[in-house]
C-alpha cells in the first residue's frame, strides 16, 4: 500500500495503462510540459514522450474529434477537458458523435476512449468553472459516466475506463485533488458500474458521489453520535452503468433513501435514483426520499455564497435528522 493523493492517482492510473498498451495516447491542454493545471498529469510527458502525451491548442472540439477519429481506427485515447464546464464547447462531439457511433454503425465501431475532466465547485471559480455536470453526461445514451471519490478508486476506475471498449466520461472532482488515501501496490484495475458500501447502518441509506462522499460519511458519524441515527453510506462511483442492485438492496434494508448531489436540482442524478427506488422498492420504503442538492442556480463566486450552495455535512445532518426519527 502506498499513500497517494487523488491527483497522483490520476497520473498513476494513466501511466499504468500507457506502459502496458502502446495504443493508449493522451491529449489535452497543458497536460504535458506543465503537468496539468491541477498537476494531475505530472511526469507523463517525461516517461512517455511528446508523441504519446500531446499538449494541444485550446481547441476542445478538435481534441475530442481527434480522440474519436483515432479511437475508431485503433487507438485508445485519453482526452482531457480542463474544466468540465468546457464540455459545453465540444458537446456536439460528445453527444452527437462519440455517444452514438457504436449504435449508428450497427456495432461496427468501438469507441475505446476516455474523457477526463475536472468537475465541481468549492474553489471560488464562479459560474463558468465550477459546475457539476455529471448529470449532463448521464442524460446521453451511449456514454459511461464515472466519478470517483478516493485515490484508489481514481486509479482503478481510470484503468478500467481506459480498457473499456465504450466511451467513458471520467469526472474528477477538483476539490478532491489534494486528498490522500491508500492505494494498493501493483496493477490495479477496478470494475465499472459498481457502487461501494462505505458505512453500514440500519436507519437510512445515503447515496453520494465524488466530493459528496466524504461529506456524507462525516454527516453519518455526526448523525450517529449526536442523533442516534445509523446511516449506510453508498458511494455510487458510477452513474452509467448504475449499480441498481446495490442501491436497491441497501435501501430495502433501511427503508429510507437520501441522495446527496452536487449538481443543480432539476434533473440531477438523484432524481433518477429516486425514481428507480420508487419503481422497484416502493413497498420497502418507510418514508419519502430526501434529495439534497445544490440549488437550481448558477454557482456564485463569493465564498460565503458558494459555501451556502454545495451540500455540506451540516446540511446533510440537519435535513436527515429533521426528516427521519
Amino acid at each position, binding site marked *: 500500500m502506498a499513500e497517494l493523493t487523488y491527483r497522483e492517482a490520476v497520473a498513476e492510473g494513466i501511466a499504468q495503462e500507457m506502459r502496458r498498451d502502446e495504443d493508449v495516447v493522451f491529449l489535452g491542454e497543458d497536460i504535458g510540459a506543465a503537468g496539468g493545471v491541477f498537476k494531475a498529469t505530472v511526469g507523463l510527458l517525461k516517461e512517455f514522450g511528446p508523441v504519446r502525451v500531446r499538449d494541444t*491548442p*485550446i481547441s476542445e472540439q478538435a481534441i475530442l474529434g481527434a480522440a474519436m477519429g483515432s479511437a475508431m481506427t485503433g487507438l485508445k485515447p485519453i482526452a482531457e477537458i480542463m474544466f468540465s*464546464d468546457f464540455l459545453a*464547447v465540444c458537446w456536439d462531439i460528445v453527444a452527437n458523435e462519440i455517444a452514438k457511433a457504436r449504435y449508428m454503425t450497427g456495432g461496427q465501431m468501438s469507441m475505446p476512449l476516455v474523457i477526463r475532466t475536472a468537475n465541481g465547485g468549492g*474553489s471560488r*471559480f464562479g459560474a463558468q468553472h465550477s459546475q457539476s455536470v455529471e448529470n449532463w453526461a448521464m442524460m446521453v445514451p451511449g456514454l459511461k459516466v464515472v466519478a470517483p471519490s478516493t485515490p484508489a478508486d481514481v486509479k482503478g476506475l481510470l484503468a478500467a475506463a481506459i480498457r473499456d471498449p465504450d466511451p467513458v466520461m471520467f469526472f474528477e472532482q477538483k476539490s478532491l485533488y489534494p486528498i490522500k488515501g491508500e492505494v494498493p501496490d501493483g496493477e490495479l484495475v477496478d470494475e465499472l458500474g459498481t457502487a461501494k458500501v462505505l458505512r453500514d447502518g440500519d436507519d437510512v441509506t445515503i447515496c453520494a458521489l465524488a466530493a459528496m462522499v466524504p461529506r456524507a460519511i462525516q454527516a453519518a458519524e455526526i448523525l450517529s453520535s449526536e442523533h442516534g441515527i445509523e446511516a449506510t453510506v453508498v458511494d455510487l462511483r458510477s452513474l452509467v452503468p448504475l449499480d441498481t442492485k446495490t442501491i436497491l438492496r441497501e435501501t430495502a434494508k433501511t427503508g429510507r433513501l437520501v441522495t446527496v448531489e452536487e449538481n443543480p436540482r432539476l434533473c440531477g442524478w438523484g432524481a433518477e435514483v429516486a425514481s428507480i427506488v420508487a419503481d422497484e422498492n416502493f413497498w420497502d420504503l418507510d418514508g419519502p426520499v430526501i434529495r439534497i442538492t445544490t440549488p437550481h442556480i448558477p454557482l*456564485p463566486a463569493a465564498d*460565503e455564497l458558494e459555501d451556502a450552495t454545495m451540500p455540506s455535512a451540516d446540511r446533510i445532518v440537519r435535513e436527515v435528522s429533521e426528516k427521519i426519527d
Partner: protein
Amino acid sequence: MAEASKPKSVGKKSKTSTRKRSSKSSADAVQLISYYSDMLLIRRFEERAGQMYGMGLIGGFCHLYIGQEAVVVGMQGAIDDRDAVVTSYRDHGHMLACGMDPKGVMAELTGRIGGYSKGKGGSMHMFSKEKKFYGGHGIVGAQVPIGTGLAFAAKYKGTDGVSLTYLGDGAVNQGQVHEAFNMAELWDLPVIYVIENNRYGMGTSVDRASAAKDLYRLGEPFGIPGEQVDGMDVLTVRKAADKAVKHCREGKGPYILEMMTYRYRGHSMSDPAKYRTKEEVAEMREQHDPITNLSKIIVDAGKKSEEELKEIDKKVRAIVSEAAEFAQESPEPAPSELYTDVLVEA
C-alpha cells in the same frame, strides 16, 4: 524558444523610433498625461489585487493585466460612448479603461455586495451596461461571437457604434473565433478583433499552439484586413486603433489588430510561470515597459517633470487604496442573493 517567439514589432522598436518620436511629439500633453495615468491606474490596481490575493482577501481565479496596459488604454482612446467592449477573463484593465469604478471592480474581486455583479460574478465575470462593457467571460473564445453580435446590433440600429472584441493568442485556436470572423466579414459588421498576443496561453507559447505564425493574418481567407502592432507602446496602439475604428465606421466591415504584448505575471495567481525564463521577463520589463517608456517621452519632451509624474502616481495610489478599502468594507452578499437574478422573477 524565447527568440523564436519574440514579437516582431517589439524587436523592431529601435528601427522605427525616429518615426515614432515625431508622432509622439505631435500628441498633445493632455493626452499623454491621460494615457500615463490611465495605464498607471491599471498597474497599481493590479498590483494591489495581487497583494490582496496573497492576503487571502481575494479567492478563486485572478488574472492580472500587468504589462499589457498600453493595449486597452490606446484602444480606448480611439472610441467613444457609442462603442462597446467585450473581453475574456483577463478583464480588470479593460473595465478600468472603460471608466468603470475601481471600487466596484475591486469589491467584485473580494466577493462583496458592492461589486459590479454583487459578488456573484467574481474576477472573470463583470459587466457594466452603463459603460457598454459586456464582460468578462471565462470560456476562452466565447466573447468573440458575442462581440460580433454587439457589432450586429450596432449596425442594425444604425448607431455607428463599433465593437472592440478582445481575445488572446491562445483563443485564436477556438473554432468559434473563425466562425465569427466569417460572419463579420460576410455581413460587414463593425467589429475590431484585438488579439492580445502576450506570447502564452497559460503554459503554452504561441509557437507551440498555433500553426499560423502571424495571427493578424488569420482573417485573410475571409478578406478581413489585419495589422501587427507594437502593443507595448500606447501611441502606436492608438494610431492603429484610429485606423481600425475609421475602417469600421465607414462601413467597411471588421478589422484585426494583433497587439504584440507581454504579461509580466503568471497566467493566474497560482502559476509560477516556469515555462519561460526570468531573463525573458526581465528584458520585457526593463526595455519595453509601456509606462516607463511613456514617462520618459513625457519628461524628455518637457511636458511634465519627474516630480509631477510622481504626484500623478500618488493620486492613482489614493484611488486604488480607496477601492481596496471599499472592497473590504462592503458587506458580504446576503444568502438571499443566491436566488435573485437567476431569471427575472426569483
